[in-house]
């Protein structure tokens, strides 16, 4: 498999982003049915699923180089976006080993790892990196092991320590926070960092999810999908920069919505780490504009129905209130009322060229 990387993408002003037809067809569309509510939608993270985005443990796609570049720029400006508490040092190396091993397994043509005892050589072809280091000795890497490897993988990463029957958010590389502050949430227990999600808390979602995750086993990762809507393809919608991106929410009009409003999907996967017993959490974020999504007839229809019937408290929590009516009106044109098949698969093999009428 060869990936044609988009090198000139920009996830901040001036935005520049698009999905190829292939990228769109592999998009992890998050709605298996025509309505949405919170649920503990966790399943085993096996290789393979309804679209190609589920084929690898840590998915690499055409946006890989641009996303790594975006992370590097943000970490240069705000180094605290990567912070690991001192008792998580074993977990950092654990995470590095797991991510490297899985990337090599899934993308042997892109990444190579050579181990000679504790002397490891990592070769990352897309980013043009080659480093030899001593496993377990952080001074042999240009930065901490967790930062090193998470600069080279897509999506945010957190490390959860397990103790006293709870999980604690004790390490983060978060440059794409969906409206939260990782610096503020650091060190919180599972129920605390989900505190602002009051609707799901009241439904008992987090109690159940915690009990499940406490029993997560090495070698049996799990995944779930989460979603929101973001104006412009901007990863950094952190609480820190809310004054920077917040005004975008008032800019959506019927004319620009197709290009400016994005369905933001998080393919979240969780891994028990074999040395430290910590849990590695990858929040792998995908963007597709409303215009792009509606090229897949099933997804356009379903997105219309989901947003039209979205419970108001959910719309408020996700910050969609300002543009939701515009979004529903836009999508209505793509919903002919015909039934949709269960599940998230696009149900088509190729897309009609842009501009052709349905």
């Amino acid at each position: 498999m060869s990936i044609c990387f988009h090198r000139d993408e920009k996830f901040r002003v001036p935005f520049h982003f698009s999905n190829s037809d292939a990228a769109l067809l592999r998009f992890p569309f998050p709605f298996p049915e025509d309505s949405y509510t919170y649920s503990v939608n966790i399943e085993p993270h096996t290789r393979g699923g309804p679209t190609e985005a589920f084929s690898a443990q840590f998915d690499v796609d055409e946006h890989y180089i641009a996303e790594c570049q975006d992370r590097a720029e943000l970490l240069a400006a705000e180094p605290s976006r990567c912070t690991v508490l001192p008792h998580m040092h074993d977990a950092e190396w654990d995470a590095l080993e797991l991510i490297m091993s899985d990337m090599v397994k899934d993308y042997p043509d892109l990444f190579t790892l050579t181990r000679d005892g504790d002397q490891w050589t990592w070769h990352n072809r897309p980013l043009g990196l080659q480093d030899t280091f001593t496993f377990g000795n952080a001074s042999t890497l240009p930065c901490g092991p967790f930062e090193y490897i998470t600069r080279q993988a897509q999506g945010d990463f957190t490390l959860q320590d397990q103790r006293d029957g709870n999980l604690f958010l004790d390490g983060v590389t978060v440059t794409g926070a969906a409206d939260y502050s990782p610096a503020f949430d650091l060190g919180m227990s599972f129920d605390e960092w989900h505190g602002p999600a009051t609707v799901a808390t009241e439904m008992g979602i987090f109690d159940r999810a915690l009990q499940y995750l406490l029993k997560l086993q090495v070698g049996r990762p799990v995944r779930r999908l989460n979603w929101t809507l973001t104006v412009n393809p901007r990863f950094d919608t952190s609480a820190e920069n809310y004054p920077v991106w917040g005004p975008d929410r008032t800019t959506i009009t019927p004319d620009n919505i197709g290009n400016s409003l994005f369905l933001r999907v998080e393919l979240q996967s969780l891994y028990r780490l074999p040395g430290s017993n910590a849990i590695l959490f990858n929040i792998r974020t995908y963007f597709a504009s409303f215009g792009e999504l509606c090229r897949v007839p099933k997804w356009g229809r379903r997105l219309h129905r989901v947003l039209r019937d979205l419970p108001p408290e959910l719309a408020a929590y996700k910050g969609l209130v300002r543009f939701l009516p515009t979004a529903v009106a836009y999508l209505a044109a793509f919903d002919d009322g015909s039934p949709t098949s269960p599940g998230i698969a696009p149900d088509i093999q190729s897309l009609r060229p842009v501009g052709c009428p349905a």
Partner: protein
Amino acid sequence: MMDTLALRVAERDLLSPTLLRLRLTSANANKLPSVTPGSHLVLDLPVKDGARRNAYSITQAGKGGTFYEIIVRHSPTSRGGSAFVHKELTVDSILNASCPSNFLALESTAKKILLIGGGVGVTPLLALARARMERGETLEFHQFCTPEEKPVFESLLAPFGQGVACVHAGRNALDFQTLFRRQPLGTYIYTCGPNAMMERVLTEATAMGWPERRIHQESFGAGGGNPFTVTLARTGGTIPVAEDQTLLDALESADVPITSLCRGGACGMCRTPVLAGTPEHRDHFLSADEKASGRWIMPCVSRAHGACLTLDL
């Protein structure tokens, strides 16, 4: 459903007339999965009257996935599993096992761990103690055994050193109150052995103000239980659920269509109506009231009290 491993017996070493140490390697030269200290694996033992699945703690795992070591006690009341291991397994025997699981992992912020083992319950504690020692972290290890086995356990605990590890012959050879009173803040207890011993540890420590969450007891998870039979009211079939099998696995093996997702009692997808029999609830999905009503079951984790259950399937 579970990933299975093919293992080869690489070494067998009779530590005492009843304790056998096995070193297991991959049967097909693959790297064995990494494991956290405190993990166990479930061996498929092809005994004469069928298959037996027994859980054994991994006492040591080779770096880079080269081997697992377990210690198996030949128990006089064995239903065949441990007798099979002792009598039938030889070097180069091939066995199937489930991928290791861990319900007794170390806590990263523990200032000290206090290990209390009884008999063959020493096995997971050996792995925990070794990991702590390798990291230069504080531990204290007390092992109970019969007077005859004292030398065997003393040699197993010798690597941890005198003053750190101590073997006691007889259950009254150590005063728990004195032991628990002198433990520094931030100590966790890890205990494995006869239920009565683990209960005593829990009772005496909590009576001295230890929080329950500071006391970890070995449990091999709640996957299995007594076998039972499930009757399908709509389709009319009867399906046996074996002691080491989940109800969901049994239904799937019999091609009963059932929706499931997490397979861990959390998501609620496999919720199934119960028409007769009493479910033994092990899930986190049903509310207390729903559980008490007995009208629903989560087949991925829950089982039956009694011999039969009738489902609306």
